[in-house]
């Protein structure tokens, strides 16, 4: 994915505070990359052409966002690794994405619920990050939040359309909610690393974020005539590197080109 750009001069020196952000930046990068990959698997298989394009567009936005984070992570790490090394040459246990985004595609309703849960978190997180103390991360967030606004609108509208649609769409969206709701909680459950960064004021407080997410979820579910699930058990582990078996298969496909032809570029 190497660009024809000169590295941003502002990153020539990395402060100690910035360096502490490395695991969090990598977590953001992995999350965007893995969800982008899942969405891109729909390409050519969408239920209708316009929505096939929509999912490919969202995948592209997330991939671009992932690149910004990986480039920044590579700078923060300062070990000579590139964005490509970070995206393509780490094993599954080193990935820090939450379990939600690695869940395999099922039907369109399932993808909508996965996307809705992620968008509600992602959009509100970016709003916070663009106000944050890390100027480079804030710049990435300022760029990405404009794109995330299109995503949250899209997944919210589809949630409403399927929830308040036909008997069949209703049955499918309810099934998807039952299957995926347990993965939503991990997004705002801070890991030990996140807690340390939050205590230092470097990462937004997730309790406040959760309230904004809940308000959005409640508003959209009401329009969709769907009941918001009661608090359910939250499946965790991805952000600590304990993944479902699905991530291994995903990475096998995502990484095979770099692993088969090391260092290859377009």
């Amino acid at each position, binding site marked *: 994915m190497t*660009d*024809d*750009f*000169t590295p*941003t*001069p502002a990153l020539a020196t990395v402060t100690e505070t910035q360096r502490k952000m490395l695991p969090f930046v990598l977590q953001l990068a992995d999350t965007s990359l893995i969800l982008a990959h899942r969405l891109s698997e729909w390409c050519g298989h969408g239920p209708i052409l*316009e*929505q096939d*394009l*929509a999912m*490919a*567009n*969202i995948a*592209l*936005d*997330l*991939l*671009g*966002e992932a*690149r*910004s984070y990986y480039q920044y992570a590579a700078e923060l790490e300062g070990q000579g690794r590139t964005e490509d090394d970070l995206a393509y040459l780490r094993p599954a246990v080193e990935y820090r994405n939450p379990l939600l985004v690695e869940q395999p595609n099922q039907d369109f309703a399932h993808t909508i619920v996965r996307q809705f849960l992620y968008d509600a978190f992602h*959009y509100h997180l970016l709003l916070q990050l663009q106000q944050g103390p890390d*100027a480079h991360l*804030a*710049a*990435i967030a*300022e*760029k*990405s*939040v*404009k*794109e995330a*606004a*299109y995503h*949250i*609108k*899209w997944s*919210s509208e589809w949630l409403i359309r399927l929830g308040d649609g036909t008997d069949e769409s209703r049955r499918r969206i309810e099934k998807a909610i039952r299957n995926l709701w347990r993965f939503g909680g991990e997004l705002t459950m801070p890991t030990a690393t996140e807690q340390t960064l939050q205590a230092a004021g470097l990462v937004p407080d997730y309790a406040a974020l959760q309230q904004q997410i809940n308000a959005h979820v409640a*508003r*959209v579910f009401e*329009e969709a005539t769907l009941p918001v699930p009661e608090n359910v058990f939250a499946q965790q582990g991805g952000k600590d590197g304990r993944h479902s078996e699905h991530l291994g298969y995903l990475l096998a496909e995502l990484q095979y080109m770099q692993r088969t032809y090391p260092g290859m570029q377009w």
Partner: protein
Amino acid sequence: MPTEAHIWQLLEEVSDPEVPVLSILDLGIVRGVRLEGEQVHVTITPTYSGCPAMNTIATEIRLRLLAEGLTQVHIHNQLSPAWTTDWMSQAGRQKLEDYGIAPPVDGTATGHVLNLFGADTAVRCPLCKSTHTHLVSQFGSTACKAHYQCDDCLEPFDYFKCHA
């Protein structure tokens, strides 16, 4: 020796690979030009994070400047302030419409507000000029475009969407 004004003139000749009627200056993505002796620094900002055209644009800037004998070119990618369609020139908007792509509606890109259930922007059909149109999808053929259809002449068309 070239001047910065001369470099700006050369950049006017570099077009967006996906919307070739627009120069990169029309698009508003060139944020600065600086000369330091033989070194030319050009700062550009991406339209969308994943826009694959950005790399092509960087290469084309290099090639255009190389043709003038400028070999020491540094292209910087600047994320903040984030690109907005408000930076698109009036000439660029006219060129877009003439090309068959509805330009971003003036003034709607100022300030980012999540418009969840509000009405969609009224967009004028670039072919028959009717404003009796509807949004088909926020996501179109490229990241920067939405897909509309005219209710009068029935033509589907691209809308270069506002990016607040």
